[in-house]
């Protein structure tokens, strides 16, 4: 990793240069909500001024740029007595600016599943490799618990990472292509003063986390609390809508379906992201449903996030962004669910 300093006006030039050749996704202001709070979303931008780097949180994660909600796996063409299959892995290069550490860590989690496990997924790998990631430090949000789940620091999984030092950014350069790209504009070696300012910002961030919840013993706690009343309490609230999984930066469960064109000359195999909270998630042929109750479905979402994933990959799938908690209309938020489990254990 290289550390450099870039002046803000030079960073602007850098973004505009990138926009000439690459699609750029960045936090964009959409509108204010009913309480007057700004809503930002990761969307394509056409110039630097549309980018809002000091945003608090995007309600929707940037997951869709790596795992689209609907992704065509292959297309079939039927002609006479023959058929051909067409598979497209390649995508146009893209850059995503403004990812927070939790979101970069979410990509690192997805890498473990789709790039480094027994069955690498070429669709994911293509998108991941062709996406230039520029992250940024930020003061903790009100409801995130990334620090409690060890997802607030990043060591890999990005190209550039910025820390705002007022008139300039402290830049971590983490790839060859990032060094090549940023060298197009003036960058400076870091001075002792830059290091001092950087450490001051880092200190301020680490002292500002607002939510505290204990998560290190969760896999064990979940084993013990399998029959807990906590699941009924929160399960009764669940709307079975799948919102949590859609906004989650790591929920990756999907189904596969086929669609045939109206003239029946072509067919498509489509992977679509799904949610374990939906009624038919565990429905099998013949109509049997292994998880007909909403409390069971909600419980298994927590088990996959905080227990099953740990067993397979050594860390929870959850990165503590609390997007699920924030967008759940019924107010099911992971911090309070986990706190309730701890309370159960005390009894």
């Amino acid at each position, binding site marked *: 990793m290289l550390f450099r300093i870039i002046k803000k006006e030079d960073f602007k030039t850098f973004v505009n240069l990138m926009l000439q050749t690459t699609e750029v996704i960045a936090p964009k202001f959409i509108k204010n909500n009913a309480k007057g709070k700004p809503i930002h979303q990761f969307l394509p931008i056409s110039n630097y001024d549309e980018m809002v780097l000091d945003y608090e949180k995007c309600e929707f994660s940037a997951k869709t740029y790596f795992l689209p909600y609907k992704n065509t796996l292959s297309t079939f063409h039927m002609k006479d007595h023959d058929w051909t299959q067409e598979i497209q892995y390649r995508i146009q290069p893209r850059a995503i600016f403004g990812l927070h550490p939790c979101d970069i860590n979410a990509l690192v989690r997805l890498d473990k599943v789709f790039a480094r496990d027994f069955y690498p997924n070429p669709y994911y790998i293509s998108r991941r490799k062709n996406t230039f990631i520029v992250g940024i430090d930020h003061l903790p949000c009100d409801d995130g618990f990334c620090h409690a789940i060890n997802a607030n620091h990043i060591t890999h999984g990005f190209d550039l990472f910025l820390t705002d030092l007022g008139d300039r950014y402290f830049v971590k350069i983490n790839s060859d292509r990032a060094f090549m790209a940023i060298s197009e504009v003036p960058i400076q070696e870091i001075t002792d003063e830059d290091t001092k300012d950087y450490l001051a910002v880092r200190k301020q961030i680490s002292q500002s986390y607002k939510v505290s919840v204990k998560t290190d013993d969760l896999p064990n706690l979940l084993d013990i609390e399998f029959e807990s009343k906590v699941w009924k309490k929160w399960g009764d609230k669940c709307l079975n809508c799948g919102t949590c999984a859609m906004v989650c930066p790591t929920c990756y469960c999907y189904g596969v379906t086929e669609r045939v064109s109206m003239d029946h000359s072509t067919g498509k195999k489509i992977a679509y992201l799904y*949610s374990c909270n939906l009624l038919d998630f565990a429905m099998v042929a013949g109509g049997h449903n292994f998880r007909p109750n*909403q409390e069971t479905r909600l419980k298994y979402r927590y088990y996959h996030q905080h227990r099953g994933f740990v067993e397979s990959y050594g860390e929870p799938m959850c990165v503590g962004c609390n997007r699920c908690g924030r967008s759940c209309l019924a107010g099911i938020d992971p911090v309070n669910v986990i706190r309730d489990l701890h309370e159960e254990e005390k009894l």
Partner: protein
Amino acid sequence: MKYLFMESKRPKVAVFDFTDCEGCELQFANKEETLVDFLKAIDIVNFREVMSEKSDEYDIAFIEGSISRADEIERLLTIRQKAKFLIALGSCACFGGVNRMKNKFPMSDVNKEVYGETPKETLPVRSIKELVHVDFEIPGCPVSKAEVERIVQHIIWEVPYQFPVYPVCFECKQRFTICRFELGELCLGPVSAGGCDAPCPAGGTPCWGCRGICAAPNFQEFFNLAKERGFSKEEVIERMDFFGGFRSVTGSK
């Protein structure tokens, strides 16, 4: 029509309208990019809105609209006798639709409100399944042509069709649509059947539940969350009664 070297059926189809705005049947003539192929897949033999020919020989009858007059009942019974498969098309046919709101008032009052001193014969509105056996229902105001196409494909290949079980919220999230509750509005999305691709919230209007109730609704929590955001039970029920698809919850006629 051929697919995987097999020849599909090409059923004779009739489209009939009753008390409605004719918007759903108009969807049959929409989506021009696949219209020719749609018309190749089925043989439309009777469809007042788009053709002059009329045949009483048909396999499938699409029924649009609700029933609000005695002569409509007669006509519907005749169609049911002739059709091998009867499909209720749109929210009016499935639930009674917007027309059903009149059932909350005495018929003499609604008649006077609309027709003044020249009253017409009218009955409380009923959906198609309240009068005859319905083989399949496609809700929506209007129905989605893309969904109608998929259902027609399933019919001509005789493959069972499954509606999605998720509520409208699921598809809103996939479109990056800002939650209408977040904007301070009342939305029936959490308890309404999805599969429409959630065009209304994306276009700036909360869901009014035109497709009826989703497969696994949680009404207790829905009334709670609406109340927490300042919407009374009466307000929610009034919204639910707009298309008539929530009568099992609201208890309205």
